[in-house]
């Protein structure tokens, strides 16, 4: 991906300052800050329950922060309703795709284009980059496969001509090969001048496409930088909240992350229902354990881990690899 032009220089297109978000009693995000510059692909990574989706949803306006500010194009958008943010240029592809199941492919795109900004993206253009779509335009989206639904969800966001595209867990519930194919579309999308802020559990995928990454753990930032500047060990440590010396077999960063790409899950054939399929066997929601027994001194996530995390993965899974495997099949934070 292209290097960000303005990092450190001009004002960021999207800026989040000291954002704190609560879900009831639970502090899902704790003083998160980030700056996304025009033309960047900014990736938020982190385990399940790290607060990634909450961050994206808060930027889209679906959650209200208890503290902090979100600025877009120099203006404070904290008070704007989600639909106003969308028409202003912040458009999200939500987790689980969330297509309009009783509408056809084309109608989904038309809804996305209802209040579109002016720009290069049209329904025809979407049909060009996803070549199968035009033939199946009059099918209900409920009849599409998971990967096809994800493509329609991306198309529905693109036709609004966003300035910042928020992608929430594109890989969720899709086979690795499908995920690859979808991410392969990214350069074409970026070529039209979009800025992308994405959330991804699949670390190797994120490192491949991002120009800047930020790792969250229990709602806090544990690592930030350009992919070329961070080592797999750092990512591993930040992802699991392990101290640098802790964690057996932690060096194989990208190898372990591949475990996430499970085959198409039970929920993939229907959009809005997916999260149920992934909810099975969930133990930790937000309180992903940051402090496994070994993660003592220097651990990123040790401090402030909520008591609920006691039931979580860290105490159970002996190694990072197993934690990741497990976290790949747990539910996202959206439902609670």
């Amino acid at each position, binding site marked *: 991906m292209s290097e960000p032009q303005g990092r450190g220089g001009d004002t960021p297109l999207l800026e989040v300052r000291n954002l704190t978000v609560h879900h009831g009693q639970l502090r899902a995000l704790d003083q998160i800050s980030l700056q996304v510059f025009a033309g960047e692909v900014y990736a938020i990574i982190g385990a399940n329950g790290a607060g990634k989706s909450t961050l994206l949803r808060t930027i889209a306006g679906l959650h209200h922060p208890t503290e902090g500010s979100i600025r877009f194009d120099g203006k404070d958008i904290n008070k704007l309703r989600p639909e106003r943010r969308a028409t202003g240029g912040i*458009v999200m592809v939500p987790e689980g795709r969330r297509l309009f199941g009783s509408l056809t492919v084309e109608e989904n795109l038309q809804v996305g284009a*209802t209040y579109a900004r002016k720009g290069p993206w049209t329904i025809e253009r979407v049909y060009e980059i996803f070549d199968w779509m035009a033939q199946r335009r009059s099918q209900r989206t409920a009849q599409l496969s998971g990967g096809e639904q994800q493509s329609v969800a991306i198309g529905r966001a693109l036709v609004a001509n966003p300035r910042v595209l928020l992608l929430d867990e594109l890989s969720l519930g899709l086979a690795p090969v499908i995920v690859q194919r979808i991410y392969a579309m990214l350069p074409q999308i970026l070529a039209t001048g979009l800025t992308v802020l994405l959330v991804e559990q699949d670390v190797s995928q994120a490192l491949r496409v991002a120009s800047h990454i930020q790792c969250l753990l229990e709602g806090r930032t544990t690592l930030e930088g350009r992919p070329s500047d961070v080592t797999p060990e750092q990512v591993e440590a930040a992802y699991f909240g392990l101290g640098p010396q802790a964690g057996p077999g932690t060096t194989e960063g990208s190898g372990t992350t591949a475990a996430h790409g499970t085959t198409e899950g039970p929920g993939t054939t229907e959009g809005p*229902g997916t999260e149920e399929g992934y909810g099975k066997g969930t133990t930790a929601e937000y309180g992903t354990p940051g402090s496994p027994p070994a993660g003592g001194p220097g651990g990123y996530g040790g401090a402030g881990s909520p008591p609920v995390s006691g039931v979580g993965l860290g105490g159970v899974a002996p190694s990072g690899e197993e934690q990741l495997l497990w976290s790949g099949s747990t539910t996202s934070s959206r439902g609670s």
Partner: protein
Amino acid sequence: MVWVNDIIQGILTGGLYALFACGLSLMFGVMKVVNLAHGDLAVVGGYVALGVITVTHVPVLWSFLIVVPIMAAGGYVLQRTLIQAALDRGVLTTLIVTFGLSVVIENALLQFVNANSHSLGVGNAIITGSFSLGSQIQIAYLLVLIFAVAVVVLLGLQYFLSASRYGRMIRAVADDKEAAQLSGIDYRHVFGIAAAIAFGTVALAGIGYGMYSQFAPTTGTDTILLFAFAAVVIGGLGSLWGTLLGGVVLGVAQQIGSQINVSDQVLAGYLVFLLVLVLRPQGLTTRRAQS
């Protein structure tokens, strides 16, 4: 021949019930609001027509041109204020709030109008006239007219929902209102439009009922709401044409009931309603796939 007559009368009455029911069905389908004040709104529509006719001397049959927009505007405002506020507090709250609205409307009518029954268009040849089929079947022009209006309204609604921009938005919001927000759609506005349509159709039904029978402040909950509910449930929730089928089944059942014994008219309708609930709780029309 008597039975043929009953079935014809029942089918035609079903058109009126469908007019009552389609707004109820729409509001439930789009915003999951079970509007317990729906019947009272029909009565309000009747009273508004009465007032409009008195003031403007517009012909009864054309009064809907004024009444429907008034009621639709009222529906939009009510949805954006009271009902939306209830929705924000949870779906159950809307039940309580619309029940309260029903009580308020009834008592306000008793207070500011009176408890007398009224009807619309007495003496109008089209409204009170009828024609004969054979020697035993008398068909009222009015019932044919109402049935035709119901079909036109349902056709129009179907076309609006499937082909227009706002119809598409209504369906999208009904599917997933959060995802609709992410596409820049203010679902509260879309809810308001759906409520406006529902109030407009129920106003039509109220005018039709006022010409067909007579209404008093309590007619809304006594009769209309229950018939509308029965029609919706028999036909199948969320299905537009189901409300017509439900209305027709209810109408025929009532006619046949009244043939057996005049006092069994209403009972027969509810027996069919119960039967459908037991045997086919999803309604007679298969519900379209919902996500």
